[in-house]
């Protein structure tokens, strides 16, 4: 069902956790759908220097969370904002069609966290 990469990121998810006093926090999804992802960012000079996540969801949701955080780590926020759910799924060697919405969750959570950061910086 799942690619080896998905199983690897599910079994050994990267960047799990919280960041105290994060510069940006994004949370998307809800328990009703069975998927919630929360992302914490530490940002210096618009560069994402640290990222952590927590996810309630299926293996695909956890693996895409892990992969998405890997992809944005060290990137400028402008670049991070261009990362699509397709790119996340591709980086995992694909997802079953029925699970593609999980990768959207990761994209959205990261966007939400960056927006939260931008809003805070504007305050």
């Amino acid at each position, binding site marked *: 069902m799942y690619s080896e990469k998905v*199983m690897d990121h*599910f*079994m050994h*998810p990267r960047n*799990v956790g*919280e960041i105290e006093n994060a510069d940006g926090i994004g*949370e998307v999804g809800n*328990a*009703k*759908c*069975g*998927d*919630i*992802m*929360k992302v914490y960012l530490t940002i210096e000079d618009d560069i994402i220097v640290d990222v952590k996540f*927590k*996810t*309630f*969801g*299926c*293996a695909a*949701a*956890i693996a895409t969370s892990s992969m998405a955080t890997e992809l944005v780590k060290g990137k400028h926020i402008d670049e991070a904002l261009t990362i699509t759910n397709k790119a996340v799924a591709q980086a995992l060697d694909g997802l079953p069609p*029925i699970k593609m919405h999980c990768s959207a969750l990761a994209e959205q959570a990261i966007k939400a966290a960056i927006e939260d950061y931008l809003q805070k910086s504007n305050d």
Partner: protein
Amino acid sequence: MSERFIYFDHAATTPVRPEVLEAMLPYFDKKYGNASSIYSIARESRAAVDEAREMVANAIGAKSDEIYFTSGGTEADNWAIKGIARGSADKGKHIITTSIEHHAVLHTCQYLEKEGFDVTYLPVDEKGLISPAQVEEAIREDTILISVMFANNEIGTIQPIEEIGEIAKRHGIVFHTDAVQAVGNIHIDVKKLGVDLLSMSAHKFYGPKGVGALYIRKGTKLASYIHGGAQERGKRASTENVPGIVGMGRAIEIATQNMDSYNKKLLELREMTIDKVLATIPYTRLNGDRDKRLPGNVNFSFEFIEGESLLLLLDMAGIGASSGSACTSGSLDPSHVLLAIGLPHGIAHGSLRLTFGKDNTREDVEYLLEVLPGIVERLRRMSPLYERVKNREE
């Protein structure tokens, strides 16, 4: 990946017993005759089918000419419900069933709704039980069928079928029960139950997949569903699946013989699992009735985590289990049964069904009890929902 594999998903399917497979084997390549033909090997096929029919009948207290073989429990459910619906259109268009039926019943009823039938889906209480009084209240002038499952495939709850049967009979309404999870697992006697139609499936009691049966009480008028040749006394066409039918017969015979000792063991495993899991894993609830449940079934909800992740981690630890019905895995919605007993969506997503079987041991359960708490904790630590609770607690 673990070396051992412990199977705790006997409600999804069971392995074919060695004795059953042995009984089936000659009918694949040696006694391969078409049971409807006339020559020697064909007559052997016919005799084997008749013998299997007798075994199935004996196991549920029926006569052998009340048993019709099908391709499984789903076909039996489709046949019973659509057959009565189509044959009773002049009498009425109202069907009574429950909100926790298997999809084979539920989707069939939903299909009939599109055709203009009116279906009442009785709600269940928080244990998953319906009461005979509920059924009686739902009966209308135009009610043509009551269909209530014998035992639920997810939470194992056993319904008061005998009492509902009495009500159905009193009102002269045909009564069907989906007994796929019950037949071969607990004692059933159709003479006592007052059911007119009863569905079964061989692979739930160590028989082969792809074969089941419908019990049709003598005198019950039921239109055919699969039209064609004259097999099954003209009621269900298609070349008889002789090895499958032979396997079903042998499997139900053995299941009936072993039932009491089998269930004693399953009950022990069940009680041990329930007690220990509830004691060691916080934020956990047992779904379904504690006593009116199948001997081999436990079903938990672990808050803050999701079922698929749980199943995959259990699989990595060498344990095969299920989260809701196996049939629903194609869907993204949480189990309709867990929602029907009142679980919020989030908690319904985090359910685990363990169904024990003949080869499971206390050691298997002990191993489960060893690994399960850690797996649940691991997923919870990744969960933003758990984080909130923890923060609140602190």
